[in-house]
Each structure stands twice: as C-alpha cells, then as structure tokens.
C-alpha cells in the first residue's frame, strides 16, 4: 500500500449532526469512459439502507450513516481509527443525465454510474444587425 495517511480525513465543513458523531470525507476514485463517469467511494460500515445519494441542481451529495460498530458488552482497549458518518459533495458537469444515475453498494463501497446525456444539439444563435 502507498504511504498515504492511513487515517480518514474529517469533514469539518459539514453541519454538525444531532447524534454525537464525527463526519469523514470518503476517499473516492472517479474515472471517465465514453458514455459515463464512474464514482467509487470507500465508506466502510454502510450498506444499501444507510447510504443516501442526492442531486440538487448540479450538486451531487453522498451521505453514509454508520452505527458505532461496538461489539456488544466489549470495552475499547486500543484504538487506531474512529467510526463516524460520511459526507462529500461534488459539482456535476452539465453533460450528466441526472435522471439516469445508478447507485450500488457492496462491501462498504458505494459505486455510482453517472451517464452522459445524449449529445446536446448545438444551438445556432442568429445575430441581428443593429439598424
């Protein structure tokens, strides 16, 4: 593995939660193909029921809610990582067809398919000469 910081980065920009939990920035890979943009986010601890994906105007926001993950009647004796929610927002390019976004979750990884819209017809603007 690379020498990146192994700790999750805290998302300090988000509004505080009612629940006393921290919010982290999920790490993402984004890649582009001819027809779509794919976004893959590491959100360990979430499943299909605890992930939300929202698009408002052209802002895509991903949320993940994580239960504290504490094994029943155990005491934490050594801790290297913290558990908390996830939140991150991206602005989408114009070309994405927002109606056709698909999302799946597997093994704590959210995968979004953001299809590109059919080619937008070029619009010709007629210029009128001033009289």
């Amino acid at each position, binding site marked *: 593995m690379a020498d990146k910081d*192994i700790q999750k980065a805290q998302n300090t920009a988000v509004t505080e939660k009612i629940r006393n939990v921290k919010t982290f920035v999920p790490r*993402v890979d984004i*890649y582009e193909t001819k027809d779509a943009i794919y976004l*893959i986010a*590491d959100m*360990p601890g979430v499943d299909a029921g605890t992930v939300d994906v929202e698009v408002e105007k052209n802002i895509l926001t991903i949320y993940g809610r994580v239960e504290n993950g504490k*094994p029943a009647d155990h005491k934490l*004796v050594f801790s*290297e990582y913290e558990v908390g929610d996830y939140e991150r927002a991206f602005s989408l390019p114009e070309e994405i067809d927002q109606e056709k976004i698909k999302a799946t979750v597997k093994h*704590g990884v959210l995968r979004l398919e953001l299809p590109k819209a059919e080619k937008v017809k070029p619009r010709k603007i007629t210029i009128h000469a001033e009289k």
Partner: protein
Amino acid sequence: MSNLSFWRIKRFADSIPEIMDLQREINRLFSSVTQTAADFPAINVWEKDNGLVVTTELPGMDPDKINVTVNGNVLTISGTSEPEPLKEGEVYLRQERESGSFQRNFELPYQVDAQKIEARYERGILQITLPRAEEDLPKKIKINA
C-alpha cells in the same frame, strides 16, 4: 457559594467520557506520527473477560483475498485488493483509494484459542473474535483459612 461548587463537580463528572475521548485522541495524534504503510490497516481492539475482538476497515475487498492467521500470540491480517480494471481510453479524474497488498502483524496480550477464532466480513468491516485460551485464563487461587 457551596451550591455553585456542587454544580461544578457534577458537571465535571458529566464530562469524564469526553475527557477520556480527548485523551485517546491525543494518544492517537502522537502515535500516528510514526504510523506508516506497515500499520495498514488501522485496527481497533475490544476486550471482554474471556477474549478480544479486533475490528478493521477494509472496504471493497474480496473476502477470499483476506487472510487472517494467528501464530502464537501474533495476529496477522494480510490481503490484496485489485484496482478497477480500466479499459483503453478510460482515464482517472481522481484516484484516492488504495489498492495493492498489505500485511499487518499485531501482538496480542495473551494466548488465544486458535480453534475458536472467528472472522466475519460485513459492510467492508472485518471483525475477528479471539477467545482467550482456556489454559491461559486467570486462575482463582483458593485461600485456606
């Protein structure tokens, strides 16, 4: 005046869990200075009378590619994760997730029963239950009068 100090004491008691959290975080802050790739993945260790639970975040792994072994009192977690197979002409716009192989050795505070170790992989979190070895349990000494 005495009333005021009473409230102060009460509020201090209320904040003890937060102080403990703070202490843990400060410890983490200092220990993370020396954290390197060899410390991947980060683990949490939980304890109960008769055993330990180790949890670690390994999102998006193939459960068959995670290996958990115990040798003596050393727990080893290793594995490999494959990067996305990109086709010709597809490009990464961002690449923040990790892929590749890793190995983490962790010394347990006592002998565990190797036969009864259980590992579960759910929602990208690996949870290993390590029951303490029968012969290693603390013995109660009977005191004769």
